[in-house]
């Protein structure tokens, strides 16, 4: 019997993974685990082997671990050819080649794109280059910022109170550093969790001595004669003297290298089907190009088949595993990526976790515990069903809520087995800001229904 195309791919095909971070690594491991014996090339723009990013805003800034020591443990040997420190610069879909910035070209039979996101830089380039101005995304960013915090700055200014900004502020306070947080919305975390939870987060900031300024924008960063940042000017006229500034304005998707390639890639990510296969700009799905991790946007059956972009650690792992499985499967053997979004954050001594898509929620109901005690669970409702949940120091309940979301349980919920206090038990508006005015950027982006949609605008979470 002649060898099938799939069998020959498995035994001597060429698989190229662009993006050597969490998703790329876990995909590569899965490919080998599923019996891929051909050549595997890992292309990464950073000169390091895959490392873990969450510790950069936590352990590393607290001085408990070095940014250099965050390399990810391997599940198995992947026997890959590594092309690190060289970004991909183009894709030839017809010729099945990835072009590299150094001029090289790498041919593939199957391609996985996991190029992720990068920190959105400070919009004024000259100000962003002042000494003392940081973003926090890469190992190098983490090492530089940790060194600066170690030196004991007089005041740190964090611009943007999303998860990263809040974690940085928390680490600064834990180290006894003065910190100001400037947020354009009315409270921290509102983009991801809404105003009700944001109000709790604002109290946490203030209780821990953060100088939290909300409803303001930073209009200008000012340097001294030596090119070091010395102050920030706010839209309300205030001036904050600071010697370290951390810009936490969310992320940008690394898709520029695909411009003109014919792939459905743009500022909102790369559209793929539920099986991780990338769409071309024609809206036709490709057979040989797959996407995983932060750069992907894919339709989710639990959330109305809307295309979701998820900047979540767990999504990267799960989507990478699914993509790798599907890369080596025929059409009947492929499976959908139906991971339920979940994330965590640790700040001001509180463990914040979430499942589902809170940003779709129009209402929230505190179902357990008490926000005043910083220990509670809340569920988000959308069109009469539970769509998301959040816990503050109540993680053990999260599985329960995940099952409710998966079962599309009704909202408001009627649990007889959980405690209720006067402040809970009643749905109230979840109070998300107008999504057309992104602040620090939510970690789940709803981006409508069109696979080839390349517009920059945000799809409102409510309609």
């Amino acid at each position, binding site marked *: 019997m002649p060898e099938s195309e799939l069998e020959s791919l498995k035994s001597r095909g060429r698989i190229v993974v662009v993006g050597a971070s969490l998703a790329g690594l876990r995909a590569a491991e899965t490919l080998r685990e599923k019996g891929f014996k051909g050549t595997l090339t890992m292309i990464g723009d950073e000169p390091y082997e895959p490392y*873990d990013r*969450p*510790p950069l805003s*936590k*352990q590393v800034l*607290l001085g*408990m*671990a*070095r940014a250099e*020591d*965050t*390399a*990810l*443990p*391997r*599940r198995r*040997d992947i026997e890959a050819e590594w092309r690190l420190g060289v970004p991909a610069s183009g894709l030839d879909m017809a010729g099945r080649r990835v072009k590299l910035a150094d001029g090289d070209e790498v041919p593939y039979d199957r391609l996985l794109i996991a190029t992720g996101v990068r920190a959105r830089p400070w919009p004024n380039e000259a100000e962003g280059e002042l000494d003392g101005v940081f973003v926090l995304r890469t190992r190098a960013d983490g090492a530089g910022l940790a060194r600066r915090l170690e030196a004991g700055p007089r005041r740190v200014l964090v611009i943007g109170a999303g998860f990263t900004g809040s974690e940085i502020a928390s680490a600064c306070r834990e180290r006894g550093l003065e910190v100001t947080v400037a947020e354009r919305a009315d409270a921290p975390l509102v983009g991801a969790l809404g105003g009700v939870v944001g109000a709790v987060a604002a109290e946490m900031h203030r209780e821990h001595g953060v100088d939290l300024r909300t409803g303001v924008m930073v209009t200008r960063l000012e340097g001294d004669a030596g090119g070091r940042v010395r102050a920030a000017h706010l839209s309300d006229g205030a001036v904050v003297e600071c010697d370290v500034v951390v810009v936490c304005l969310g992320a940008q998707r690394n898709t520029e290298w695909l411009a003109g390639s014919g792939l459905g890639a743009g500022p909102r990510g790369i559209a793929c089907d539920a099986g991780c296969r990338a769409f071309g700009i024609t809206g036709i799905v490709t057979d040989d190009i797959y996407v995983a991790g932060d750069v992907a946007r894919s339709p989710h059956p639990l959330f109305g088949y809307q295309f979701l972009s998820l900047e979540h*650690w*767990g999504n990267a*792992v799960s989507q990478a595993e699914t993509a790798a499985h599907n890369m080596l499967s025929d059409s009947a053997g492929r499976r959908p990526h139906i991971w339920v979004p*979940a*994330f*965590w954050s*640790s700040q001001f*001594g*509180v*463990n914040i*976790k979430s499942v589902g898509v809170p940003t779709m929620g129009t209402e929230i109901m505190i179902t357990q515990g008490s926000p005043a005690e910083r*220990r509670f669970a809340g569920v988000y409702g959308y069109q009469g069903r539970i769509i998301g949940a959040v816990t503050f*120091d109540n*993680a*053990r309940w999260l599985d329960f809520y995940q099952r409710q979301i998966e079962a599309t349980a009704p909202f408001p919920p009627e649990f007889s087995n959980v405690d209720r206090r006067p402040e809970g038990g009643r749905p109230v508006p979840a109070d998300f800001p107008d999504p057309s005015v992104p602040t620090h950027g939510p970690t789940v982006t709803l981006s409508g229904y069109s696979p080839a949609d390349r517009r920059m605008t945000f799809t409102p979470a409510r309609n």
Partner: protein
Amino acid sequence: MLRLVVDLNRCQGYAQCAFLAPDVFAMHGDEGLLYDPQAEAAQRERVAQAAAACPVQAILVEDAEASDA
């Protein structure tokens, strides 16, 4: 040297790891967990015990000497 990562989506703050390998895992607040992503080889036994004891199997460890090829 050991590399480790904890799947903090899975972790429920049971603290078995912090009890068994306190130099590598520490509770931070009531249920948050901080860990050293690169631990000394001398911690090998303890980290292995912690990984085995974690009720949700959230800890992944790699003995990096073995695979530093």
